[in-house]
């Protein structure tokens, strides 16, 4: 086997070893981040879900920014269309 080939193989094994170690952590952390993001988004839309938000007026301007994330959330949750009557994104 030529040296460049060995190098390539080694890099591949290195990558796999690295991933074997990292991947479980990564998915755990990613899930935690996603849960945090979902919570944040739901707080922005809380008023629409019947949870009183004392500062709804001021968070109104955050809604456009969260629109995309909201869409991503309800499709991920297995709902094809927005579950909120008063709020449809698709």
């Amino acid at each position, binding site marked *: 086997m030529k040296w460049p080939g060995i190098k390539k193989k080694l890099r591949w094994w290195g*990558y796999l070893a*690295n*991933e074997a170690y*990292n*991947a479980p*952590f*990564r*998915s755990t*952390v*990613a*899930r*935690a*981040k*996603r849960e*945090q*993001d979902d*919570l*944040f988004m739901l*707080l922005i839309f809380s*008023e629409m879900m019947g949870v009183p*938000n*004392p*500062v*709804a*007026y*001021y*968070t*109104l*301007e*955050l*809604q*456009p*920014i*969260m*629109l*995309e*994330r909201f869409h991503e959330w309800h499709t991920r949750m297995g709902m094809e269309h927005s579950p909120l009557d*008063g*709020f*449809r*994104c*698709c």
Partner: protein
Amino acid sequence: MDRLFERRIIFVGGKGGVGKTTTAGALGLMAAKAGRTTLLVSTDPAHSLGDVFDMPIGNEETPLGPNLTGLEIDPEAEAESHVATVKMSMKSLVAPKMYAEIDRQLELARHSPGTMEAALLERMADLMADAKSRFDLLIFDTAPSGHTIRLLALPELMAAWTDGMLGYQDRSRKLGELLDMFGKQHSKEDEFGMIGGSKDEPDTSRDGRIKDILLTRRRKFHRARELLTDKTITAFLLVLNAERLPILESKKTLDLLSKFDVPVAGMIVNRLLPRDADGDFLKERRRQEDEYRAEIDQTFAKLQRVYLHLLPHDVHGVDTLRKLGEAIVEQLGVQ
């Protein structure tokens, strides 16, 4: 209280119908006369400042005389323009067929309870922050007490909420950083359906925008609260009549104001019966009034008090207001 007009913000508050607007108007005239450029702001949704000055004012700054400008905040117009801005930015993000949906949704938000109040508070905070460059003194003629107190409490509520929200944002950002450390650069992962793909890329700018909006709000209300509780800047004047209900309400207001650390500068006891009013009926009323006056003197002993007598005619127009103002200024010892 001889430096009352050297303050930057004066709030005139009290129960409905005790004479807040006339007091605020009279003080405004006196401050203007003392050479302070003054903005007189009415926050009561049922405005009567224009009626007291006998000229239309409305939601625009209107000159009322030398050094004196009037403004009647229209919370409905404020809310409308706020919602319109949100609508615009939302429409730039969705397909045109959703426009009707967005209109409907935001129309509901505009009419939800608390919206008017929030819009009003927002405008007041803006005025407190930037009127400094144009006016020496801001006089707020507030809506009846309860309303004022809520306006004072809201900044704290808002700050608590934004702090909480920023906390969530921050945690999410930290987790995102951690994610990067675990080698998110291998975007290959996405093809295998693993979580934490490169889809989050535009998020950095979005998180930045969310943080900006939240921080701008928080800063604004923090600043408003700082100004409100600084006794070199703000003075709260309570107006009341020598009657049972206004006294009871003033007590409650005073307790709340001290809870929120708002400096109360004094009290204006308005519409006392003149000594020379005759008749048995008035004599009886005056006897009762004397009792209440004694109660006021005892309960509010720590506050400077101004006594104003009931006038034979309604306070209406600049001339009567000026007379009233002179009486207040004389008793307060303001130059």
